[in-house]
Every structure is written in structure tokens, then in C-alpha cells.
């Protein structure tokens, strides 16, 4: 069974304290890994897509990386406005379905 697991469930950081979020997956055939950000009361907002091991994408303070078993979302010198829930999803084989993890709730304190 295809599965996506995110850790930690929640993370509290001080402003400027860098850290990483993990998304591990066991799937039959990865065709894409997606990171989303979700603010309270809103729909998920797309951040990155990664397709192959070794690939990296960056956007402002965020950097996503991918290996054959997991993806990391690195947050460098976070600010309070980076506080949100970060969701990881995978697409497998030729399906158009996205399978999501449970998310990591990030709180960045000033």
C-alpha cells in the first residue's frame, strides 16, 4: 500500500533557527513529490514539485530535496510568517491521484 509519512507532527522554532521537515514515502512508482503550505482556514498552496532523486528546488527561505525514500523541506532562518502547516504529497505510477501525508505544523516565534 502506498504511504506517505511526515515528521515531526509539530515543530516550534525561534525566529532565525533553521530546521528541516521530513516526508518519507513507500510507493510503487513515484511520479512526482509535491510540497504545499496551508494556512489556517485556507486551502493548500503549492510550493514545489520534485521528480527524481537528487533534485532540489528553492524559494526564498525554503529548499526542498528528494532522495529515493524521502524528501526534506529545509527552512533557513525562518520568520514568523513562515508559520503554517506544510503538506507533502506523492503521485504514483500513471495515476492522477495525489496521496498526502498528515502534515507538519510549524510555529516560528519572534
Amino acid at each position: 500500500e502506498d504511504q506517505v509519512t511526515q515528521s515531526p507532527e509539530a515543530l516550534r522554532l525561534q525566529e532565525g533557527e533553521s530546521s528541516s521537515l521530513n516526508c518519507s514515502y513507500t510507493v510503487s512508482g513515484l511520479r512526482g513529490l509535491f510540497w504545499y503550505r496551508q494556512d489556517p482556514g485556507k486551502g493548500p498552496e503549492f510550493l514545489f514539485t520534485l521528480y527524481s532523486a537528487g533534485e532540489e528546488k528553492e524559494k526564498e527561505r525554503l529548499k526542498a530535496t528528494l532522495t529515493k525514500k524521502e524528501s526534506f523541506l529545509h527552512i533557513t532562518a525562518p520568520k514568523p510568517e513562515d508559520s503554517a502547516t506544510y503538506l507533502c504529497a506523492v503521485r504514483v505510477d500513471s495515476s492522477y491521484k495525489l496521496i498526502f501525508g498528515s502534515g507538519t505544523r510549524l510555529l516560528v516565534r519572534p
Partner: protein
Amino acid sequence: DAGITQSPRHKVTETGTPVTLRCHQTENHRYMYWYRQDPGHGLRLIHYSYGVKDTDKGEVSDGYSVSRSKTEDFLLTLESATSSQTSVYFCAIKGDSLNTEAFFGQGTRLTVV
């Protein structure tokens, strides 16, 4: 913002009543999805559509049905609402290419009392 509108945004209904949620898009995308989001479970796929009148089940489809008679509209129906269907429902759309991301609507908060 991707052109997705969900309606209603909030709804309270009684157990046993039928409920229909609507997702409307202006992007002419082929793929549309309905997810529910509950604490501790993340987003779980209910149903999805890959074209007009073409739909398929997701992992939590029991108690739900969908219809897509036009490209722009994807309806989710709870035939007889139960308290376990209290949740936040999200619609998503995706373009034709395999290598494109999905965009989400703002969600519908449904409470079944």
C-alpha cells in the same frame, strides 16, 4: 489564484439529510478532485474526475457520490449525511499534463449535527 470556487463555504446540516457541495473552475482543467481533511488524517481523496462524466473513487468514497456534467463543475453529494462526515472539504483542479501540480479551493466546512 487559480480560478476555483467552492460553495457553500460553511454549512450546518442535520443527520440523514442530503447535502451537495459545488466546485466551480474557470481554468478549463481536465482533472478535478474532492478531498476531506480531518485532524490527524491529512487530506484524503474521496472521488476524482478525469473528464466530463468520467469519475473514479478515492480511498474514502463510501457515503459520497459525485457528478460532472460540465468541465467547469464537479459536485459532491452526501446522500444521507452522518456525523462522521463532519469535516472540511477541499476541491482541487489539475491540468492535462502529468507533470503539473494541483491547485486547491478555499474549502467548505461541513458540520453534521
